[in-house]
């Protein structure tokens, strides 16, 4: 199970990078997560997650163009690597198999219990 380490927020970030392909960079990822998931994302949290993901080899980055509104700083575009794709698949499979294994009773009793 320790093969692919991917935290919840890391998973969200990696998926969003995939969603935004090929225009995934700091601001776009942040805004995408904020609109889609309706949760606040700080630049710090996002950037450290991106850095971690890159270090783990799930993402790779390349420098893009600089614009005036960015005060002449380049964008850093992220794309998912093959390893990243496998990590995502692994996570999804794990979840699916867990979903599949839940007996129907379990969810129903819960509703009765309520």
């Amino acid at each position, binding site marked *: 199970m320790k093969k692919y380490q991917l935290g919840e927020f890391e998973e969200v970030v990696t998926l969003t990078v995939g969603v935004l392909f090929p225009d995934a*960079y*700091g*601001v776009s990822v*942040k805004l995408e997560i904020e609109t889609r998931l309706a949760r606040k994302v700080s*630049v*710090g949290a996002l*950037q450290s997650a991106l850095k971690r993901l890159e270090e783990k080899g799930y993402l790779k980055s390349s420098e893009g163009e600089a614009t005036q509104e960015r005060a002449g700083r*380049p964008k850093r575009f992220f794309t998912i690597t093959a390893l990243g794709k496998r990590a995502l698949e692994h996570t999804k499979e794990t979840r699916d198999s867990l979903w599949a294994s839940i007996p129907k009773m379990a969810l129903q009793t819960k509703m009765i219990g309520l």
Partner: protein
Amino acid sequence: MNSSPQPPRFMLRFFRWFCHRDLVAPIEGDLHELYQQRVQARGKGHANRRFMIDVLLLFRPSMMRPFQPFYFINPYSMFRNYFTVSIRNILKYKVFSFINVFGLAVAMSVCMLIILMLGDRSQYDAFHEKKDRIYRVLSNYKNSRQSYATTAFPLASTFKAEYPVAEETVNLTPGFGGDAVYQQRTADMRGYFADGALFRVFDFELIQGDKKTALTQPYSVIISRALAQQLFQNENALGKTFDFSDRQLSFPLRHDGTGSPAVAWGTFTVTGVIDESNYKSHLVFDALISASTQTALIAEKKMEDQSNNWEGFYRTYTYVLLHPDHTRDELDAALQDLAIRKYKNFTSETTKDFKLLTQSLPEVQLDLKGNDTDNRLPRIGYFFLGGLAIMIMVLACVNYTNLSTARALTRAKEIGVRKVTGATRRALLTQFLSESILTSLLALVMAGVMLIFIANAFKGLWVNQFLNFELPMTPGVYVAFVCFALVVGIIAGAYPALKLSTYQPIQALRNSGNAGHGKLGLRKVLSVSQFVVSLLFITTSLLIYQQFKHYLAFDYGFASHNIVNVELQGADYEKVSHVFGTVQGVSTISATDIIPATNRNDNCQLRKVNATGDYFSVGLLQTDENFADNLELKLLAGKKLPAGTSSARFILVNEAFVKQMGYATPADIVGEAFESAWGKELWEVVGVVRDFRFKLLLNADVVEPLAMRNTANYHYANIKIISPDVMGTVAKLEQKWKTIDNVHAFHYEFFDDQLAGMQAGIFDLVSILGFIAFLAVTIACLGLLGMATYSAERRTKEVGIRKTMGAGDKSIALLLSKEFMKIVLLSIFIGAPLSYFANNLWLQTLPNRVEFGLGILVSAILILIALGMLTIGSQTWRAARAKPVDALKME
């Protein structure tokens, strides 16, 4: 881009500082982009806030740049290594370390004494809450030698009324000194007239009484606790009344002396008691009398009215409390403005270019002015002692430098290895400096012990009874000591550290034996200068000692042996003479107003009657008819002063007077009349005596003209004792004194002791300079010892070989000491003429000086050579005597 709003610069700079290099550009871009979006959406304020939050949230380990490699090295272990190496080096070369530590300690203890003195003095007047705003006003005129601490009386009130720069002013007027009497108990009471403003400026607290009202009513007085104890003993002093009669005793400087006959001033009420022992201040007094009392005394004609006298600026002390909104410059300008306005109409010599200057309270402590309120070391004294201390300190630092560079060869290999294994020059500098600092800290400990002795010796000096140095050890002083030790360590170690750390590892490791560092060069220069300074000190102290002995053995021209001078303290001389005359063992008694050849003089202006020329200044002694006989003054012509009250018109003069007035022989002047510049009275010369010294030897080179006159105004009785039991006779005199005056204690001094006492200050100078000379020589010799030891050690093998080849002990010793004897001889060559001329500079200005013969110089040189020889000889002789086998065996 100019138009678009920018995020807060400091946050951006902070972000750039901490953020990882690889990430900084894209993330900064993101931040900018978000910032611009937020400005559009919610405005600049919101965007700024969010920007700051973002940056702060980015400040997390994963975002930070990696630390530079050296951040990860724990500097503690490096310092511990320096420390260990230093300790090992100190222990390995015990002789050198001891010489270094001891030399530094000796010099540091002297410097620490100066720090103690400054620390002591800085405690004075530190208790005033407004001390930063209190200024003393000084008076100064064109040709005055110094500024005076006193001012004109009306200054304080005028200044406060006319200039807003002063929040408050206060006058302290000395002007009373006499006997306070309460139920047969009498006490000496001297002090100032002051008003309530005193307490608005200074923070003296009363232990009894209300300081707001204590000085309002006339005839009210605040007394010190000591005086209260003396007068009222255990009774409650507050509200008590006592009688005061003024004898014009000197104040604020308490000369011995006698004052004038008592004038009853009336009854005073105690309105306050002050505990003077709580306050270290330059203002010391027994009592403060309300200023309004002066008005009453003026009305009774017991005091002159000074309230509108701007010319007499020697009457009162003025202190100004600066208004908090104004600066000292404004105060100075205001005082100068006042001085110009008030003094432009006066024409006398002492008001020309009259200036009013200011002194802050700390400046008061370290700078003595004319007419000052207490005796303390003047600034020149600090400079003098500080100069000596610094000179000694430099000598000791030179020692350290010399010995450390001399040992460079031994250390070269260590330096080479360190450099090869990657030590930077800075690391080596730190290492050597930490070694020298460690040495100076060790020296500090030793100096602390020495200081106890030096400080006690200093406190025991004659002069300290006037300076009142207590030299307490306060925490501030300790901090100053440690800082001082650190500075000394850095200064002493700077040159060796810079020099040693430049060694090239290759050369250092190859160790070619004497890679240019065996030469003496700079070290020779430093050593020579040490000995030159030592020689200068030795010569100077020998010379001053000779001068001291010369003064002690001086022939004053009168007999002072076994004469006891008794203060009359207002008692009637006729009665005293009569009573003491009956005491067994007393031979003759005479009277005078001033003890001749001590530090007081009186003058008058005389010229020949009916002459038109200038008046001559002539010394004046008021004596009775027996004075000349009692002091065995030799009569050359005429007769002695006659007795009786009608004799005031006769004067007895000296030879110098005869010469000054232009007479050929003493006989010619007898019977001539002279007129005085003041009284226009005629004085007739009745006789001429041989010249004798009536002024201080230090003040007058030749005997000046003198007139003695009998006006029955005496302050001292001179009692000659013939009994072999001198002290027994004095005891009998004391018994008899009680029948004359049971109020005042018997005050007497032997004339010989008084004359010798006048030279006590010179003896202090001899002690100080002698001590400094001793230290200078010690340090210089220690340095020489260190170098000789080192050189002998380095040449052990050479000595061994030479001895096997047949060299004798003597030739070896000579060989080894040649280098150092050259140093000593060279320094004598330079130092001897230097000390001769330098000492002649001051000696020529000294009255009654000794002959500065070559004898003094020769003995100084001999001392230096002897010490030098002893130092070098002890080492070289040992090296020369060593068995060659031992020297050659070791490898």
